[in-house]
């Protein structure tokens, strides 16, 4: 998809259920954007997600570091955000001690959504102060993502005045302004992830009022090998003088059937998603690997920024 269509806002929050490849999608978007000349900051909300490894680096920290040309990344955990807030509000070095003593847990419990609002408040601060053209936020796994993004509205209702209230209001302004922030939802072409994505999408639109970017569908096999018989395969092998045994042919047929069954299911789910959620889709290819590395991120970035086949 044309990146200008994808990156219509400076902040893109990437959200999805655990295991759907949210971080993979964040990495692909970061690389595609960097290649188009944008400077990118990726913000990891949950710490160790494997993002750094996808670019061939070690773990990330609270300070932004370079991952690749044009791409910086950092973590932003709720605990860090809360401690930073307390430090900035006159508690100084006591903050860490209070955190250890459990007092911070109590504060977070007394003010639900407090940690989330601080994280989002920090994102808003980055939007204002960081030089990056694009800020990608790798959100917590859904349903946490819903709670996370609903927190400002909840606080707006619960807290009547003061800095937390104005923080919540500022974050609501950010989230409801489609020219500033969008949510990019990620899923797999499977039944349960699709259902969860649809639920999340409607909740976010209705209750947060956030603009949804095109949906990313990870792990698409796209097509199966042509449907030809074992005899035709054997004939073709003989004609090319390949020493293929009947058991090799059996393996070819079995692998093709396995893929065809998955492709059938995949297409059904992609169509079902399109019917239930009228958003543009970006399909990223299934990668025949067990660990996503820099080469794989390049393949995904190509696919993400590829021209659309139709409309």
């Amino acid at each position, binding site marked *: 998809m044309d990146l200008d269509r994808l990156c219509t806002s400076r902040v893109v929050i990437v959200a999805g259920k655990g295991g759907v490849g949210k971080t993979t999608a964040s990495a692909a978007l970061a690389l595609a954007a960097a290649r188009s000349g944008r400077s990118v900051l990726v913000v990891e909300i949950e*710490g160790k997600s494997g993002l750094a490894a996808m670019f061939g680096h070690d773990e990330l920290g609270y300070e932004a570091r370079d991952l690749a040309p044009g791409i910086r990344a950092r973590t932003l955990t709720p605990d860090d955000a809360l401690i930073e807030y307390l430090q900035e509000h006159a*508690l100084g070095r006591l903050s860490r001690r209070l955190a250890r*003593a459990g007092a911070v847990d109590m504060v977070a*419990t007394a003010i639900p959504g407090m940690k989330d609002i601080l994280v989002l408040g920090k994102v808003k601060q980055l939007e204002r102060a960081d030089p990056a053209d694009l800020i990608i936020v790798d959100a917590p796994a859904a349903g946490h993502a819903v709670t996370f993004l609903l927190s400002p509205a909840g606080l707006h209702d619960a807290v009547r005045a003061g800095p937390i209230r104005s923080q919540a209001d500022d974050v609501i302004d950010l989230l409801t302004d489609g020219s500033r922030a969008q949510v990019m939802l990620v899923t797999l072409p499977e*039944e*349960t992830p699709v259902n969860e994505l649809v639920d999340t999408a409607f909740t976010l639109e209705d209750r947060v009022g956030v603009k949804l970017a095109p949906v990313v569908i990870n792990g698409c096999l796209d097509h199966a090998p042509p449907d030809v018989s074992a005899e035709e395969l054997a004939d*073709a092998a003989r004609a090319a003088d390949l020493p293929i045994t009947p058991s090799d042919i059996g393996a070819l047929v079995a692998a093709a059937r396995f893929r065809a069954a998955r492709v059938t299911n995949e297409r059904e789910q992609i169509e079902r998603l399109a019917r239930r959620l009228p958003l543009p889709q970006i399909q990223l290819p299934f990668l025949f690997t067990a660990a996503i590395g820099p080469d794989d991120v390049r393949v995904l970035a190509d696919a993400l920024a590829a021209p659309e086949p139709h409309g």
Partner: protein
Amino acid sequence: MTGFASVLDDAHVILCCGTGGVGKTTTSAALALAAARRGRKTVVVTIDPAKRLADALGLSSLTNQPTTIDRALWDPEATAPSTGQLSALMLDVKHTFDGLVQRYSDTPEQATRILENRVYMNLAGALSGTQEYMAAEKLYELHDSGTFDLIVVDTPPSRHALDFLDAPDRLLRLLDNRLFRVLMGSTRTGLKVASSALHRLFRTIARAAGPEVIDDVVLFLQAFEGMEAGFRERSEQVVALVEDPATQFVIVTTPRTEAIAEAEYFADRLADDGHTVAGLVVNRVHPEFGGPPPELARAWAERVPDSPLAEHLVNLADFAQVAARERALVSTVGDRVGAQHSASLAFLPSDVHDLTALRRVASALLAP
């Protein structure tokens, strides 16, 4: 690789651990079903099943009490021993917590004061670990009822593998912390420093979020006064149950680097705490089809360019390659977790959302 039969026959509790998206709920349900088919009276505690699986288990809403599943659904051929029984429940965190409060409050008035406190009402959503704590509490209740031979718990998906075990401590720490004692008017000199820090914290919160927040906290802590001992005792009982040799851990994972790293972290933490991993379940494993090795298949494909045969050869090579990578990953985790039993479950073309599919998963878990 050995099947799970002996774990299913001997354990009283099976805790399924793993991160989100690895098929933990399905695996837990399948283990419970397999145990029921082996004649055990089994209950599975699920946390957040996908809707269709929940429907299949008869859990159309949060039940919080075990629902017995019709025998015809999990044993249609009627081959299982008659002692076998399968029940399921979906954890209702709030309801379980309310039950604990009611159990340990001295008077109904105390219970009401807590249940209606705003901080208490937020606790379930805001304090990380509450879900885990309530899952542990539910486990203990089921154990204590003496109704079941085997309790299979689908632990909440957590970033940090063993939150489930740490959870009771977190709540106790909250109730037991210095904040509590300071607010309750303790004048012990050792608390002076903490006290001044806390007053500054409170001033900050009051300025940031309004003074009523502090009032809520004070009321909450006051309401809990005297219940701490009961909570602590219960927590110790839960810990003892988890440490009992008849409690077994099963790690659920997928053959992806991140999931495997988490599984290893889990296993290490369990080992640190003196637990052993009884089983390892690797979900979504690609099948192996045999045939030529990937390099040869690709070389052959180049000799028949742009043909259907070439596409088939590349397809086979792709799957062989991913299967080999998965095998390598899984073999290291198998050694590392020291699991006595492990099972690999094939990548299924569609989701497991009925009992027929669940029975197939259960059979695969028992396959030697």
